[in-house]
């Protein structure tokens, strides 16, 4: 259990954040310069907040009012720096044992051997960091932090130094290592896929503030605001007008159409009729209606609309179709109204490269309303 509230004023930037987590891995997610790394530095005691309080498992690490500021070296946190910050003049073995200097020699050797084995660094302990691959360096940095048996592991962009294919592979390995060691972790990333894969809780940062903190599934389906949705990189963020809102349904008008969306009873968001409202439709949840199956059934196919594919983007395994609706008036997103993503197989079976006009339907559960 980690609870933190921090205020830190810097020239041209103010960090003012408050969040807590019960989950094992908390991912701080947000654009670069949002204050994520500053938060880690405050947690680690490398930067002193102007005001605030940091409590880890009942242990007060910092409390400006009580005058408590536990020094870095006594906080027992395993910090893995962006770019890893391995000691270039020391071997892998010396790097791993760096935090164990006050332990007896035999225990130090045993601990290093254990880390080497569990992180599969066998045979590398006499090498220097510059002789290692990026993935190996990352494991050494992680091992150096884990060797001191920390109460909390801090990971600052652990994968950003690697190139894309390796990154995807190491993301899986890193998740597994964190699970195996069972250490509470705070992870910083600007990559939503990384935050989602590794984080049990995601804390969304923007401009020095936390704009949402939620378990990852809740964040995925219920971003707290349009800003959160944009930072998450959600596509098809649209604006309409409320017709009617009840605790579990919201009717709205968009591009001359009437759409029905689910509301969340837990969120109790009940906008007044005629209020502008933001919502989003996930491209992979828009359904194309097959032309060989007769007329669409309004009971089964909700939120029917029709339009023409005006552009497409090929992602290899999927194809994104930019669809302009048949409704009159300017399109919602420049040249098109809706981005629709279909698997390549569907694209080929339906011969979308030849046939450009389609009827679409969107289940009401796939239209997510964004509270203002």
């Amino acid at each position: 259990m980690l609870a933190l509230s921090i205020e830190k004023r810097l020239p041209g930037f103010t960090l003012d954040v408050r969040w807590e987590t019960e989950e094992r891995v908390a991912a701080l997610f947000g654009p670069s310069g949002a204050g994520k790394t500053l938060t880690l530095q405050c947690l680690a005691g490398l930067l002193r907040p102007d005001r605030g309080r940091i409590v880890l498992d009942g242990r007060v690490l910092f409390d400006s009012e009580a005058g408590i500021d536990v020094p870095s070296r006594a906080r027992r946190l395993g910090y893995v720096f962006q770019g890893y910050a391995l000691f270039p003049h020391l071997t892998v073995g010396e790097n791993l044992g760096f935090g164990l200097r006050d332990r007896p020699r035999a225990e130090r050797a045993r601990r290093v051997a254990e880390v080497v084995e569990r992180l599969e660094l066998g045979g590398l302990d006499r090498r220097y960091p510059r002789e290692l691959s990026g993935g190996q360096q990352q494991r050494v940095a992680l091992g150096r932090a884990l060797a001191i048996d920390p109460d909390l592991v801090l990971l600052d962009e652990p994968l950003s130094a690697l190139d894309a294919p390796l990154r995807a592979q190491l993301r899986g390995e890193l998740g597994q290592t964190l699970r195996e060691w069972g250490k509470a972790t705070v992870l910083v990333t600007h990559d939503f896929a990384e935050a989602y894969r590794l984080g049990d809780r995601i804390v969304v940062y923007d401009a020095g503030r936390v704009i949402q903190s939620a378990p990852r599934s809740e964040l995925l389906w219920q971003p707290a605001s349009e800003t959160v949705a944009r930072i998450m990189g959600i596509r098809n963020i649209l604006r309409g007008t409320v017709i009617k809102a009840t605790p579990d349904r919201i009717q709205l008008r968009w591009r001359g159409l009437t759409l029905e969306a689910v509301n969340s009873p837990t969120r109790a968001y009940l906008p007044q009729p005629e209020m502008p409202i933001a919502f989003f439709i996930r491209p992979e949840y828009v359904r194309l209606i097959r032309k060989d199956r007769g007329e669409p059934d309004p009971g089964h196919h909700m939120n029917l609309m029709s339009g023409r594919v005006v552009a497409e983007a090929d992602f290899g395994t999927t194809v994104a179709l930019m669809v302009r609706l048949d409704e009159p008036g300017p399109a919602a997103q420049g040249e098109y109204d809706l981005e629709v993503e279909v698997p390549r197989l569907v694209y080929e079976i339906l011969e979308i490269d030849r046939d450009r006009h389609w009827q679409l339907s969107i289940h009401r559960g796939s239209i997510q309303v964004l509270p203002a």
Partner: protein
Amino acid sequence: MSVAATAVTLLIGLPLAWLLSHRRFPGRDLLEAFVVLPLILPPTVLGYYLLLMIGRQGPIGAALAAAGIEIAFTWRAAVIAAAVGSIALVIKAAQAGFESVDRRLEQAARTLGRSEWSIFWSVTLPLAWRAVLAGTVLAFCRAMGEFGITLMVAGSIPGRTQTLPLAIYDRVQANQMTEANALALIAIGVVVVLVFGVSRLARLRY
């Protein structure tokens, strides 16, 4: 004598360089300007003020004389003169070296439970040793060549406070050119060997 002077400059210069590179404190800029003064002031001016400080009437000199330690016009004064003349080289080189060490390495060491003292010896100094060495060699050569300050505070007493450059000057004044030549060659030899040896050493990685 130059070795002793260099040891003194390291002892005082390294902590100062660390302070200048790692800490922000009031008067830091003033201190930074102060440490380069010996490089830019005329040596005789420095020697004059130094003499006022450590001479028998000076505040430091008087205190030490009361304790039975003579400074002015002894070998100690020659060491102090050489140290004062060369310390700025050590400080500036070491400061630049310390500043070039990635700050995150020191932060990493801190989170791994090390004290600032331990971090200096195990991270900062090992990574900056080339710069420190270069500064030390320069300082040593400068200490060996120190003339003006030494003459002011230690005089040129043969066998006691007469340093190599003072000796050369004396021989030239006395028109003993052969001896002056020999001494000058010794000076050149020492410096060349030193600089060459150090540049070989600096090629080692860490």
